[in-house]
């Protein structure tokens, strides 16, 4: 009983090291975690309110907003540390909202010329109407205007979830060649990210026969760690955040293997039993993240708003281009590691035949440990990439990705690293190209349907081998 308990405690402790430490830092650092500061309690029944964020997504404080009716000011408010402001209104009706440009920080200005004034804002009885002032950096205004039709300056936009995933943000319907091309790029981008996370999943299965259900949580933890490191109070560069995520993912992977899975294997625990344990672990981690990170969707403050580059018919932000290229570079690196290094060859040998590998002097436990460390690190990095390209970090992002990872891994052939790469890219393409004909809300459904069809037609996957009976 003792060592097993130790194992759990160790795994938990490790989690606390990586997660709770950062969490408490974040909790202490940000002045208020409560959503509505006391200043903003409405006096009347109706009000106009909003949150001001700079181009980097950070809240802007000390900005004055004034509401006027028929040319006379009826009230004003100054945004707080969270960028929130609220102007109580005496009665329902039509108002004009003005943003005091002099109170804006340097380098920030309205996206559209004249965007500091919003006219004809209709407020219904007892409505707390949310209003958005779109703001950009001074240098950005020109580019934006060149690229897009000026947005209507009159009507304020209702606040909503602005984190449109890049892929679905494409306007246009139908199957024009340009749109197809654009979606192929989006698909490859998504697929490459899935591939990074899925390689570890597949290799872990190949060497230990364990389907690690908790792999998605390593993805989330990666994204969250990078978020914590890169936002206030530290506000370190996101690159450092990414590195921290990789380290945390590697540690978590290694910790789980050393503290939980290896002892379980020593006890010759059944595979199904281990599978269920990994599900319990996944649930435990996922909701612990929810408690620590809260259910909000957050954005990385850096690289958040970037103008898209136009490469022929394709438009892609530099951020997404770099993420995609980096993903491929990493996949190639993993392939080279597997093909050329001692450890890589040993890993393939263990995946091929564990007993034979052990008999020929390979330290199987060490190989499995390194696979967990590398797999965990890759999953965490994939989480950062996913959070970046989707423009959102949230508590169950990894679980959402997990099913796509499974689809990719099974499509390519369980246990094969290269299969996982190919399968994941196909899954990415399927989910994005489905947007040509179907609503975006169903894009994951199609990817999962592909999984079920593959199971029907070629269960061993593209690169997998049929199993022997008996």
């Amino acid at each position, binding site marked *: 009983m003792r060592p097993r308990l130790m194992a759990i405690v160790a795994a938990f402790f490790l989690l606390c090291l990586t997660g709770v430490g950062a969490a408490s830092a974040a909790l202490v650092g940000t002045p208020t975690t409560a959503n509505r500061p006391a200043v903003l309690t409405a006096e009347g029944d109706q009000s106009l309110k909003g949150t001001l964020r700079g181009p980097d997504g950070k809240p802007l404080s000390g900005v004055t907003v004034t509401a006027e009716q028929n040319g006379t000011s009826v009230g004003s408010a100054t945004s707080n540390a969270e960028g929130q402001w609220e102007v109580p209104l005496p009665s329902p009706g039509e108002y004009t909202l003005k943003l005091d440009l002099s109170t804006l920080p340097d380098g920030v200005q309205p996206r559209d010329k004249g965007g500091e004034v919003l006219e004809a804002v209709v407020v219904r009885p007892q409505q707390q109407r949310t209003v958005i002032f779109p703001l950009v950096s001074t240098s950005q205004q020109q580019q934006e205007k060149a690229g897009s039709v000026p947005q209507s300056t009159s009507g304020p936009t209702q606040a909503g979830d602005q984190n449109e995933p890049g892929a679905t943000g494409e306007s246009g319907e139908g199957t024009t060649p340009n749109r197809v091309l654009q979606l192929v790029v989006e698909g490859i981008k998504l697929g490459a990210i899935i591939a990074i996370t899925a390689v570890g999943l597949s290799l872990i299965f190949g060497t230990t026969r364990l389907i690690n259900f908790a792999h998605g949580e390593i993805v989330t933890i990666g994204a969250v760690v990078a978020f914590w490191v890169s936002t206030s109070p530290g506000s370190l560069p996101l690159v450092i955040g990414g590195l921290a995520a990789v380290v945390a993912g590697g540690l978590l992977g290694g910790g789980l293997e050393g503290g939980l899975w290896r002892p379980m294997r020593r006890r010759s625990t059944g*595979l199904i039993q281990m599978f*269920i*344990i990994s*599900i*319990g*672990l996944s649930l435990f981690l996922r909701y612990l993240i929810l408690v620590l990170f809260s259910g909000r969707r957050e954005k990385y403050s850096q690289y958040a708003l970037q103008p898209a580059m136009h490469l022929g018919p394709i438009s892609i932000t530099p951020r997404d281009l770099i993420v995609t290229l980096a993903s491929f570079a990493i996949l190639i690196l993993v392939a080279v590691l597997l093909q050329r290094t001692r450890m890589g060859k040993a890993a393939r040998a263990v995946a091929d035949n564990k007993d034979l590998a052990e008999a020929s002097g390979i330290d199987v436990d060490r190989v499995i440990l390194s696979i967990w460390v590398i797999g965990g690190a890759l999953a965490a990095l994939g989480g950062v990439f996913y959070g970046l390209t989707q423009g959102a970090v949230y508590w169950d992002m990894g679980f959402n990705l997990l099913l796509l990872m499974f689809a990719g891994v099974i499509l390519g052939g369980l246990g094969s690293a290269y299969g996982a790469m190919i399968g994941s890219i196909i899954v990415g393409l399927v989910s994005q190209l489905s947007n040509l004909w179907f609503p975006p809300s*169903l894009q994951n459904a199609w990817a*999962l349907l592909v999984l079920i069809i593959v199971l029907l037609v070629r269960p061993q996957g593209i690169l997998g081998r049929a199993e022997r009976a008996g």
Partner: protein
Amino acid sequence: MNFTDVLSNAFRGAFGPEAAIYALAAVGLNLHFGFTGLLNFGHVGFMLVGAYGVAVSVSTWGLSLWVGLLVGIACSIVLALILGIPTLRLRGDYLAIATIAGAEVLRYFYRSDWAAPLTGGVYGLRQFANEFFALNPYSSDLALGPLYFSARNLWVMTAGWALVILASLLVYLLIRSPWGRVLRAIREDELAARSLGKNVYAYKMQSLVLGGVIGGIAGALIAIATQSVNPDNFNPAVTFYLWAIMILGGASTILGPIIGSMIFWFLATFLDSFLRNATASGVIPPDLLSGPDVGALRFVFVGLCLLLLMIYRPAGILGDPKELRLDVR
């Protein structure tokens, strides 16, 4: 801090409608995993089609509730066939992934704009079970000391626990028969069962269909009890609840799902109620724990429950201690 409240809430949880419904669904899951060894991680999918079978039949098509129940059962059978045909010939873990994926695909489709004219999309459907509540024989609420059940809940509980007993009895009879012996043999080693001339595929399919129907009825009962369906209430977490319940009580025992569900809901509501009470009365500072966190902590508890049970007591509370010595696979 009011402990009487917390405890009476917990007891209400142990006998309330949720406990009955989850016990019923777990009986179906237990037939799959406990007795046949099928790794079904999409049990919520059966509940979803069962619930929508009722809701769509009544709300959209204007049929009778009882016809809706039959539609729900038929949907569960179809789902079992669709899921089973490709995956029952494959290794168990493939079934696990296919079922969880299948249940998610279903949820995506039921909530999509496409299906909205039928299913109400993300808003779901409401007020379709009046026929059921019209039959309510209880005219007044029941108060047993601090325990309190509304007449409405009493009626749902009566129907729910009656169904649990019926389903358990059926499973008991089935498992004690030669048919059950074949299922248990398949659970242990399906190649061995095949080598003895058993059509393993057909038996697994029968088990999947039967357990799925029980799950579908449980889903229908949820829909009826709450008079509403919403696709997002049928998320994968429900399946994990069911697994925790089944393993807690003891997979492959007849009473396991029932005991498991009662203990599970006792603990879950106790935890919930305790934390809410503690934050409300200031025993736990509200800064430390807010309302939504309490809900999340329940899942942390479920996860930990599954994890620790599987490591230390894979046979559950009712499991045969002799079975513990054998490798659970």
